[in-house]
């Protein structure tokens, strides 16, 4: 398919000899993205469903829950925000908590962004917004190098679109399921269990494990702080502890060499 050249493309063509077009549609890559993204879709839909149930069970109305899932599109941050919303914490505390839970995406974005640096601004914003844990992992398996290659954007689209639909379908199903189930069933606890499943693989290293335990204990001890600041106190103390433990392990390694 021929498209008119944008100014920067024309400039680029004149300086370097026909660099591969990352953004052009490439059917085999699109199909490969769809195929590679298929196996986890069921899990994503189920995870969306748990978050959907948790949202309505923690007191959001169906409209609010639908709004949240459609625009926020970050399951772990949504789960983290629910107890804070239920406890009527200030909005800025919920905002900071969401940013903190999402901080891992900053690392992913730094790895992914250079691949697509030449897309138009709005596309970069939207594709970045839609790229979560799984999409990053699958994409970087296929394209570890930042060098421009034909089909990169098609592959990303193939991963991303079904992922988005599976998540939304699961969430919406969960929202309606949750609103039909009585509160006594305690289905909101499924949200806590989902956070447990997210956290356990993240404590694979010793600094992370120590930091997480310290964060949990700090949050329990500091739960009475005003504005629900106990959670953020836990994050700060836990993170500093993890960094100290990491530093000590590195120093010990250096001493042994």
């Amino acid at each position: 398919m021929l498209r008119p050249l944008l100014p920067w493309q024309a400039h680029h063509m004149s300086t370097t000899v026909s660099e591969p077009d990352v953004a052009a549609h490439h059917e085999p890559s699109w199909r490969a993205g769809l195929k590679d993204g298929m196996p986890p879709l069921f899990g994503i839909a189920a995870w969306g469903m748990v978050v959907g149930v948790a949202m309505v069970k923690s007191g959001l109305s169906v409209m609010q829950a639908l709004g949240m899932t459609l625009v926020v599109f970050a399951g772990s941050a949504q789960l983290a925000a629910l107890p804070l919303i239920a406890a009527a914490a200030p909005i800025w505390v919920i905002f900071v908590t969401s940013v903190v839970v999402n901080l891992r995406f900053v690392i992913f974005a730094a790895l992914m962004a250079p691949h697509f640096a030449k897309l138009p601004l709005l596309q970069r914003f939207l594709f970045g917004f839609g790229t979560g844990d799984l999409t990053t992992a699958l994409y970087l398996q296929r394209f570890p190098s930042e060098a421009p290659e034909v089909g990169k954007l098609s592959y990303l689209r193939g991963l991303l679109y079904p992922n988005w639909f599976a998540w939304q379908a699961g969430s919406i199903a969960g929202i309606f399921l949750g609103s039909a189930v009585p509160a006594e069933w305690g289905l909101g606890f499924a949200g806590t269990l989902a956070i447990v499943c997210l956290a356990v693989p993240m404590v694979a290293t010793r600094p992370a494990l120590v930091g997480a335990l310290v964060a949990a204990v700090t949050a329990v001890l500091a739960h009475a702080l005003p504005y629900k600041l106990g959670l953020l106190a836990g994050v700060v103390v836990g993170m500093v502890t993890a960094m100290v433990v990491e530093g000590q392990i590195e120093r010990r390694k250096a001493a042994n060499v």
Partner: protein
Amino acid sequence: MSDLEIWLTIVAMTCATAITRSSFWVIGGHITIPTRVQGMLRYAPVCALAAIIGPDLLLDPQGTVEFSLHNYKLLAGVAAIAYYLFRRSMLETIMFGMVCFTALRLIFS
């Protein structure tokens, strides 16, 4: 929270997603994050998740620490962690944890 406050919260959370996921894409080009900062970015999310789980499992609705066999969330949560370590499946773990929680609740209440 009022309806308006919840919608404002949703807007704020959307900004949180945009800041963390889209910033580097918008800047574009290659950015190297210093190792120390990477450590902080890596440890902060798991600390936040742990700081949510801890009070959720340990505190009763009045906000006192409940370390007893009547704390069904704690028992079911510990069982779920063990199950996850053993099976590594999120869906199974959530179902297993919910079954434990529901069974404890129905048997002892």
